[in-house]
């Protein structure tokens, strides 16, 4: 990095949707505007003066269809009137939009066009039934392949990956890893009051998971509903600033994390994944970020990975080099990614447990890492191994198309 870049003052709204007690699809709910405002104001409340924010980036995937609203940059000033007449724009890269918002903010500070930026990510998806939401999400793939895809397009894509994984490594073996991934997600989410699965009280999560065998007649062939992330409304936001920027905000190093490196790579969306058993773009992007940081994966103490589906979690473990191909399921089943494992992952629940407001997810991951590395994680706080002081986040758009990897350490 040309100069030191920091993140601080992160905030999340609740991830709203099925699972939350207060969620009622028949009643009017908060919209896009309220989520942007709530997350943004929660950040502004942690700094001395909104005037110090030089630029705003809003990550969002599909407000144009979910909410019939484009032009999200125009909502910055609803957070604080002092943000009016400042640069503000929205960025899109499907479910990687939040990560792109972070990357855009980082680049702006690196380019010295800003000292303090606000990176926000938002999505409000519960405006339509899931069967229509599937259409919206399908635009994260190539539309010309939509016709041949499944009614639930993305579950279909990852079901196909899971099917190949089962075939090569064994169904029961794989389901043990996937089921453990699900249990970890829910157990972590129960510790975070903003998580969508915070109210989940199912005693026997393994039993719940194992009794729901995939059934292609009702859903997809190789995944059940517990293998899937949630349909969520939510927003997350965080400050990305230079050292001077932190000074301006009156925020000390103890309340910030430093961005050690980042990488953002994109694969050709018109091609199928080169190998269904590998998240190739994640593999390349993570490797690049770790190389730029000059560290190995063994120095990473906690990671947020993009588990839009449990199989994506397992494949991410393999893509990060934590396990050989085919060994990811065992690595997870043995508890290595649970909160007291070697490398706790998705410590606030991830996309399956915390929720997946698509355009917000990348920013939520950064907020979680910031909370964990600065000791602000509340009941979700993990004990970071001093030999593994780094944090890592992997945010993905589409089926391994757009990937953002960021390496963090305590400032």
């Amino acid at each position: 990095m040309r100069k030191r870049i920091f993140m601080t003052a992160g905030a999340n709204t609740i991830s709203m949707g099925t699972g939350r007690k207060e969620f009622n699809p028949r009643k009017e709910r908060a919209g896009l505007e309220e989520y942007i405002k709530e997350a943004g104001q929660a950040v502004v409340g942690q700094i001395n003066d909104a005037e110090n924010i030089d630029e705003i980036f809003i990550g969002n995937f599909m407000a144009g269809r979910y909410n019939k609203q484009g032009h999200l940059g125009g909502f910055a000033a609803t957070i604080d009137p002092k943000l009016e007449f400042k640069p503000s724009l929205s960025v899109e890269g499907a479910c990687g939009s939040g990560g792109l918002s972070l990357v855009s903010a980082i680049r702006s500070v690196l380019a010295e066009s800003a000292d303090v930026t606000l990176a926000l990510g938002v999505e409000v998806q519960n405006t339509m039934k899931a069967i229509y939401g599937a259409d919206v999400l399908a635009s994260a793939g190539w539309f010309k392949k939509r016709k041949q895809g499944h009614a639930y397009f993305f579950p279909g894509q990852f079901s196909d990956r899971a099917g190949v994984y089962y075939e090569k490594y064994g169904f029961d073996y794989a389901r043990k890893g996937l089921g453990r991934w699900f249990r970890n997600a829910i157990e972590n989410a129960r510790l975070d009051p903003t998580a969508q699965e915070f109210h989940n009280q199912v005693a026997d999560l393994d039993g719940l998971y194992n009794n729901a065998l995939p059934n292609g007649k009702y859903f997809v062939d190789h995944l059940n509903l517990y293998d899937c992330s949630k349909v969520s409304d939510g927003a997350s936001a965080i400050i990305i600033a230079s050292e001077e920027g932190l000074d301006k905000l009156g925020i000390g190093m103890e309340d910030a994390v430093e961005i050690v490196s980042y990488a953002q790579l994109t694969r050709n969306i018109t091609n199928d994944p080169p190998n269904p058993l590998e998240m190739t773009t994640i593999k390349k992007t993570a490797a690049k970020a770790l190389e730029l940081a000059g560290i190995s994966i063994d120095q990473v103490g906690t990671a947020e990975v993009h588990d839009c589906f449990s199989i994506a979690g397992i494949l991410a473990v393999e893509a990060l080099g934590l396990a050989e191909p085919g060994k990811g399921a065992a690595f997870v089943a043995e508890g290595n990614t649970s909160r007291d494992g070697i490398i706790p992952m998705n410590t606030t629940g991830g996309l399956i447990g915390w929720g997946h407001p698509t355009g917000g997810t990348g920013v939520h991951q950064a907020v979680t890492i910031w909370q964990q590395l600065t000791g602000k994680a509340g009941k979700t706080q993990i004990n970071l191994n001093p030999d593994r002081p780094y944090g890592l986040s992997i945010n993905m758009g589409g089926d391994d198309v757009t990937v953002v990897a960021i390496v963090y350490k305590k400032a």
Partner: protein
Amino acid sequence: MNYDERLQQVAVLGAAGKMGSGILLLTAVEMTDLSLKPENKGKTFVLNAIDLSDEGLAGLVDYLHIQILKIAEKKTIWLRQMYADRADLIDNSDIIDQYVEDAMRIVRPTTAMETSYRSHLVFEAVSENKALKVKLLQQIDSNNPNKPWFFTNTSSVPINLIESEAGLQGRVLGFHFYNPPAIQRLVELIVTKETLPETKQFALDYAKALKKVVVPSNDFAGFIGNGHFMRDALYGINKALELSKETTFAEAVYIVNKVSQDYLVRPMGIFQLIDYVGVDVVQFIMNVMNPFLKDEDLHSDLLDQMMTLGVKGGQFPSGAQKNGFLKYEKGAVVAVYDPSKGDYVDTASFSSKCDAFLGAMPQEFKPWKSAVRLSDKENHFTAYFVAVENMNTAGSKLAMDYGKNSDAIGRKLVADGVANSEADVNTVMLTGFFHAYGPINSYFN
């Protein structure tokens, strides 16, 4: 003519009614699904929705649109396969909209009876009036060169009478849906001595396609469902009249309704069920059935009196309950009608007195909503009804007598040859009336 061909030209008489609209919906969906089969591409499917009421038909179109949309949303995975050859239908929303459009194109709402003169299959769901049914079916049959099959939804009129009086000679059977047809899984199937085997086979295939539970009933007025319900209702009415010698009329109705709902763990009390079906319909069905019964008088002066007073129950087009014996606010009972006053008496003014008279409920009590979901209902109800009996309260005595009578009605239906088996009686009450346990049981002995 095979199954698919038979369903290419269909008519529903009384299509805008409570039962007709449900039958029309289910048939429209079945016909649309058939039309999507590769071998049926290019064939025309016609479903004439015939009703006297223009207003009713307009409402029917709205109802169909909403319901077919919901059905399409639930089977989109299958629909994507069916529309795989349509390059223009890409998103789920495209496919769902197309399915609704295809279904609505099959349905032809009309007030003109003549449209049924080309039908191969006619569903009859007009009001429960034998003369009217006979007249309509005869008229269609004499003008229709296709020798159509007639499926009547009558819940009480013997099918052989319709058959002989309309001159249908084996081309009619009773296909009795329960209300609402789109939700209730039961169909009572009634054939006559003449009914053609292929007509019966088609009925079974059609019921299977609609995922219905078929219970055969023999051709006695009222069949199994009303055979039980009408007698059970009359018992409740007479029990209330008996009690009203000691209490007010409103109190007696409240007590019997509560005993039949709470103590007997049914989805509705007997007076609420009469209101749901309609006081007029209950009176009418009793009148249809009564001449065929030898050793009993299935008649209630009280129902006649209610009809004279214009208190009829039934439902609004929205499905909301109209006031009858009971008055409803947002579905909850708030008052009971008193014929001597010609007005409703608020339950709040007497319910605690009645509850005290009935006595406490046993601890084992679980309301119908949760009891119906129990995996081991047999054990639960055995223990529960032992506890009811042991309470030895006025409520428990009324409940035990009520249960015994309900059991006796069920056994009589088998003894009289209306039902082929006790299991059939129980299936009808479980699936057609949503009872949590069959009326023929050992709980009340």
